[in-house]
């Protein structure tokens, strides 16, 4: 019984980081209809920033987090201006953006490999290897902190989207781009800001990931599959859905790992992706496609 509780705790603790990675991806998909395959490779960039700040300057990844967020958000602005804004007018927009984001992921991976080699890295602030105990259940501090910070950032995003005028314009554009434009929303600016926020969140997630997982440049391929499963299960573009999916699947994966071994744990996400696409393509929380 204690084991079962322990696994639940570990699953939930991991869910937060996945939720943060997934919400950036989901925001970008919702507004721009881009499945950004490069998203996790940009998470990786955030992780390297946090790693080197810690290794060279002893800077806590929590301190680096806002810096990584800003650097990646600025990168997002550049990418949008240089690449995606132009593609928005293309008739083959969807196909083009899949190829472009795939190419971008390869370029980022290659650059990180060239600069930092393929060695496994992990940032190791004190709390990363420490834990709280509640009875016999232990809660790794690193995962707990990363989960709390992730949820804080996601809540801030949710409040912004729900209550600010620009946040409402972002949601409106997600739900009905033409209508938003007719009402005077500058949808190109909405695209730019959402893309910057989404990529910024990837950077923030990277700082957290840097002490939760060990990583190397090619690891992002594993994450893209995991993130796709979250976004699809969450209902393509619904941030709340993505967050819930992250917690549900992380907990399931933790149990699968316990009963069948670690290899099978990752497979949970892929099986979920496959099953959801077959059985309920609109996701757990998405509405029927024709209403979207």
């Amino acid at each position, binding site marked *: 019984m204690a084991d079962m509780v322990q696994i639940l705790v570990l699953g939930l603790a991991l869910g937060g980081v996945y939720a943060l990675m997934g919400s950036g991806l989901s925001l970008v998909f919702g507004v721009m209809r881009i499945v950004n395959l490069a998203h996790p490779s940009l998470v990786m960039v955030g992780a390297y920033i946090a790693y080197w700040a810690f290794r060279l300057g002893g800077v806590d990844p929590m301190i680096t987090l806002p810096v990584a967020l800003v650097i990646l958000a600025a990168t997002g602005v550049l990418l949008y201006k240089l690449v995606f804004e132009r593609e928005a007018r293309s*008739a083959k927009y969807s196909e083009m953006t899949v190829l472009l984001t795939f190419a971008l992921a390869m370029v980022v991976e290659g650059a990180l490999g060239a600069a930092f080699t393929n060695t496994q890295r992990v940032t190791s602030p004190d709390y990363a290897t420490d834990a709280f105990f509640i009875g016999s259940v232990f809660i790794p501090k690193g995962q707990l902190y990363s989960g709390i910070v992730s949820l804080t950032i996601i809540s801030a995003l949710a409040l912004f989207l729900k209550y600010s*005028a620009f946040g*409402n*314009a972002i*949601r*409106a554009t997600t*739900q*009905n781009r*033409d*209508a*938003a*434009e*007719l*009402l*005077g*929303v*500058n949808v190109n600016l909405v695209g730019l800001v959402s893309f910057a926020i989404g990529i910024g969140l990837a950077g923030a997630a990277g700082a957290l990931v840097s002490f939760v997982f060990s990583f190397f440049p090619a690891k992002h391929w594993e994450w893209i599959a995991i993130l796709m499963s979250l976004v699809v299960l969450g209902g393509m573009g619904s941030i709340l859905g993505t967050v819930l999916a992250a917690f549900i699947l992380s907990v399931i994966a933790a149990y699968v790992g316990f009963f069948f071994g670690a290899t099978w744990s990752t497979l949970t996400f892929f099986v979920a992706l496959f099953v959801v696409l077959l059985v309920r393509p609109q996701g757990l929380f998405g*509405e029927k496609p024709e*209403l*979207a």
Partner: protein
Amino acid sequence: MSALLQVSNVVAGYGDGPAILNGASVKVEPGKVHCIIGPNGAGKSTLLKAIVGMLRVREGDVTFKGESVKGLRPDQILRKGISFVPQERALFPKMTVRENLRMGGYSMRDKAELERRIDEIEERFPILKERRDQHAGTLSGGQQQTLSMARTMILKPEIVMLDEPSLGLAPKIVAEIFDIMRVMTDEGITILLVEQNALMGLKHADWGVVLDLGRTLFEGPGKEILNDPRIQELYLGGKKAA
């Protein structure tokens, strides 16, 4: 009387595609209800999209209060005082009724004034007040159309263009939609309506315009057009086949 909005011999199409409009003209007089009728595919929706700047006007001109508005973006047209409710109603299904109304005033700087106007709209359309916190996607078809139309009133526009507001609604609900149009004209709003159902549209219109194959065929007072033998011909397909 000088026209409020004048569309003259407009040629327009989608992207680089063929011209869908081939010399469409409409003259909109202040304070009146105008109805564009014509068979399916005549280019009625395309004409409204060209007026609001969703499509480029390739030839001809669109003037509002004597000034050309050709080439302006939809948001600029909106700020001039021309609101548009497209055929697909243009709501945000997962935003609440109140949030949808608020989006109607997105271009307003004075947000306190915006809230006041939303309150006014809610007083006038009690169903919207009742459903204010409900997602727009959960409303019935008639309620959604009410919301779309009420939302245009937030900006106190001079012209409201409605593309087939009665589409897919039961006759009793359609009557309510025409009542809302009456509310709008009482406010001094000029209406440019597109209807596929010619009989119903013309019955409520001061002025009728008949469009086919992207061209204005003829126009006149609503009741006269209704009894024009050419209408019979058009809808029975005589003219189309020619």
